[in-house]
């Protein structure tokens, strides 16, 4: 734009300079004409003046001729006079002719004519009188008259000469002024025209360098553009193309320029695409096809005339690959979201309208997602629930932290479902919340199962309570009669011993013994029942110390049995339960080795477990499948006493610790019981 306005300025300046020069020429021409006429005027005046002087001379000659005639009366002087008179007449008519343009001079001319006529006639009458022979007096009078008339002529002549001199001065002045102004005007005009011309020329020169420069810039620009550029003239022929266009089309510029654009820039619309400039395929010279994107723009000259067009295009195969990868990735992520077996939904943060819902969500809500998009909770769910959801959403967005809602009810078309929902605020780069992401797991089934479990647990607790009160009455109600049986048997033996024979006394002792065993049995059963539900307090236990305490009691009952307890045996467990374990196992060991002459009981650690070993009766492990069941006996009661629930109790106590118990035994050689008090770690 700038260069165009400069160019226009230069052109206007040049035009003005030319116009000025023309005006100047006309002006000079005109003043030259004026000057020439002024000079002619001056010459004219000079001519008038010189004739006036010559007229004066001629008049003087005529006078002199008369005088000479009068003195000499020589007729030759009359001839001179005639000659002078002819000269006077000629000059008079010349002067009249010359001063015809001047009214004042014409008036004086008339006066002069009249004065000259009278002078001349006075001269002629004097000559005539002379010839007639007039006296000298007459001649003197004629001379006086002649002198007066001569003076008169001279006066008029002088006036005319003076007039012509004034005229001459005036004309000379006018000419001088004209010459002065002409010179001025010429100088100013020429100077202005020169300056304008110089400016215009410099402008034009600059414009031409600018144009050359911009041409170079255009060429460079064209070739450094990373896209293909082809310029086409109004005829549809190629005028320019850059290197990228050469490369993409396969055409050399020199070959392409002048060719119809459609031959070089061959397009096929093959590729699928929906945007402007998309989906086009360029067929290069060699026939290879290339996906491109192009844009065409018409070129319009400054004056608005169409100047062809420019096509800009680029190879989009890399972009297409990126786009395809992006689509693949998007589809991949979409399918992940779609296939997550929990409801996934996204709401925009402002109005909390649904933006996304996956398949599990559709199934859960019983709503197609199309129905949900752009709407909010209030459009679908009972008012109270919708309010709660919206409140929770707002809280999550305000806090900006993931929120876990362990349980929330939702009434859907399929009925009420329970959800475990996590809500996540999704923020933009500036940290402003943009979306709310929700993931809801349908926990209806789990909740139902949980409730059923809770009901079962309550029922179990109730039945445990029943069992407890049953145990209580067993303890109390069964023991009292047993005590009576034993007590009164004892009373009979004490008070009526003399009245009973040995047989009778033996019966009473058996009654008493049976009652006592039953008492023990009841106690053991109660202990077994209590073990299952007693609360445990795990602490560090010195097993060696515990075993020593128990063994010292047993040693009194079984004096023939030796006991060896490994030192520093330690375990973690509930003291009450562990005591039951050690008590029962040592009890058994002492009991079953009591028939040996040298009974031996050991308590120690082996095979990663504690053990209690005896060298007693032993048993066949193969037949001892129910070793740890209640009321399982492997020996006759008459042989070894016991309730038959000791090992069951031990196993239960060990299981409460998560431990294990097993036995190794050989009949007549002895038995080892191994046990642990904690779950296996490896």
């Amino acid at each position, binding site marked *: 734009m700038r260069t165009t306005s400069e160019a226009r300025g230069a052109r206007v300046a040049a035009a003005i300079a030319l116009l000025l020069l023309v005006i100047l020429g006309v002006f000079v021409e005109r003043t030259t004409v004026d000057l020439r006429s002024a000079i002619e005027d001056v010459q004219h005046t000079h001519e008038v003046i010189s004739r006036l002087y010559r007229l004066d001379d001629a008049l003087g000659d005529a006078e002199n001729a008369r005088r000479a005639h009068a003195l000499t009366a020589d007729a030759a002087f009359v001839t001179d006079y005639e000659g002078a008179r002819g000269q006077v007449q000629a000059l008079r008519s010349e002067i009249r002719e010359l001063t015809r343009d001047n009214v004042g001079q014409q008036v004086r001319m008339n006066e002069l004519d009249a004065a000259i006529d009278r002078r001349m006639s006075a001269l002629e009458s004097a000559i005539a009188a002379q010839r007639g022979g007039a006296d000298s007096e007459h001649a003197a009078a004629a001379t006086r008259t002649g002198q007066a008339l001569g003076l008169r002529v001279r006066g008029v002549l002088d006036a005319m000469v003076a007039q012509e001199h004034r005229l001459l001065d005036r004309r000379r002045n006018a000419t001088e002024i004209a010459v002065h102004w002409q010179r001025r005007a010429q100088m100013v005009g020429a100077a202005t025209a020169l300056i304008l011309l110089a400016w215009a020329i410099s402008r034009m020169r600059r414009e031409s360098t600018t144009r050359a420069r911009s041409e170079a810039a255009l060429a460079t620009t064209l070739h450094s553009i990373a896209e293909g550029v082809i310029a086409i003239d109004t005829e549809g022929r190629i005028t320019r193309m850059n290197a990228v266009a050469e490369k993409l089309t396969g055409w050399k510029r020199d070959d392409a320029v002048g060719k119809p654009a459609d031959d070089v820039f061959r397009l096929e619309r093959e590729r699928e695409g929906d945007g402007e400039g998309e989906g086009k395929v360029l067929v290069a010279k060699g026939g290879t096809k290339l996906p491109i994107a192009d844009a065409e723009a018409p070129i319009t000259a400054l004056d608005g005339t169409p100047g062809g067009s420019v096509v800009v295009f680029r190879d989009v195969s890399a972009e297409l690959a990126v786009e395809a990868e992006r689509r693949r990735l998007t589809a991949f992520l979409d399918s992940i979201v779609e296939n997550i077996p929990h409801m996934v939904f996204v709401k925009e943060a402002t109005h909390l309208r649904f933006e996304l819902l996956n398949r599990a969500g559709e199934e859960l809500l019983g709503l197609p997602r199309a129905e949900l998009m752009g709407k909010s909770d209030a459009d679908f769910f009972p008012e109270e629930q919708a309010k709660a959801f919206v409140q929770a959403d707002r809280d999550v967005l305000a806090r900006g932290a993931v929120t876990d809602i362990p349980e929330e009810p939702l009434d859907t078309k399929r009925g009420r479902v329970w959800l475990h929902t996590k809500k996540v605020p999704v923020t933009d780069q500036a940290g402003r919340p943009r979306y709310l992401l929700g993931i809801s797991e349908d926990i209806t089934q789990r909740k139902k199962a949980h409730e059923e479990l809770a009901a079962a647990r309550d029922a179990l607790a109730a039945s445990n309570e029943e069992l407890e009160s049953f145990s*209580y009455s067993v303890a*109390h109600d069964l023991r*009292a009669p047993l*005590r009576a049986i034993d*007590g*009164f048997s004892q*009373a009979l033996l004490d008070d009526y011993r003399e009245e009973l024979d040995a047989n009778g006394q033996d019966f009473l002792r058996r009654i008493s013994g049976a009652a*006592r065993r039953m*008492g023990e049995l009841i106690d053991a059963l109660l202990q077994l029942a209590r073990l299952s539900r007693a609360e445990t307090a795990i602490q560090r236990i010195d097993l060696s110390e515990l075993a020593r305490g128990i063994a010292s009691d047993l040693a009194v009952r079984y004096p023939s049995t030796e006991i060896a307890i490994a030192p520093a045996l330690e375990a973690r467990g509930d003291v009450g339960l562990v005591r039951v374990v050690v008590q029962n196992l040592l009890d058994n060991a002492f009991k079953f080795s009591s028939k040996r002459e040298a009974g031996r009981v050991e308590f120690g650690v082996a095979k990663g477990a504690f053990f209690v070993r005896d060298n007693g009766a032993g048993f066949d492990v193969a037949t001892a499948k129910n070793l740890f069941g209640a009321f399982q006996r492997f020996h006759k009661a008459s042989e070894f006493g016991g309730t038959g629930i000791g090992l069951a109790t031990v196993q239960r106590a060990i299981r409460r610790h998560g431990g294990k118990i097993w036995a190794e035994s050989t009949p007549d050689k002895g038995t080892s019981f191994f046990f642990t008090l904690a779950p296996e770690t490896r």
Partner: protein
Amino acid sequence: MNGIILLVEDNEDDEILTRRAFQKNNVKNEIVVAHDGREALDWLFGEGEHAGRDTTVQPEIVLLDVNMPRVGGLEVLERIRADDRTSLVPVVMLTSSKQEEDLVRSYELGANSYVRKPVEFDAFVDAVRTLGIYWLMINERARRK
């Protein structure tokens, strides 16, 4: 050592055996037997069928069964401890029950001892003897003036 022993026992067998055990141990104190908690409270506070009893006379020791019809042993214990006339009387819970709850509750309510009646009569006799020696002879009880 002539104080009264109040035996609260609903089981007649146990009553007889207890008396026998005291007898075997030469405890000669007067034994008052109440057959349930109601009767025991009436006797202690001179109410009901024992209205008019001189309640300044209180037992040297109360042997109290836990499980009884009408009013249970724990309630009787509570009432004994709540009344100025009886609050300082030693109470030994004498029961067949070994329930942990009863044991704890008894001590919470201010029982002085908790003795489980063994099935074996010999052991029972031993227990009674020990009780008698301790509470009637060794122990120095507090009394209100």
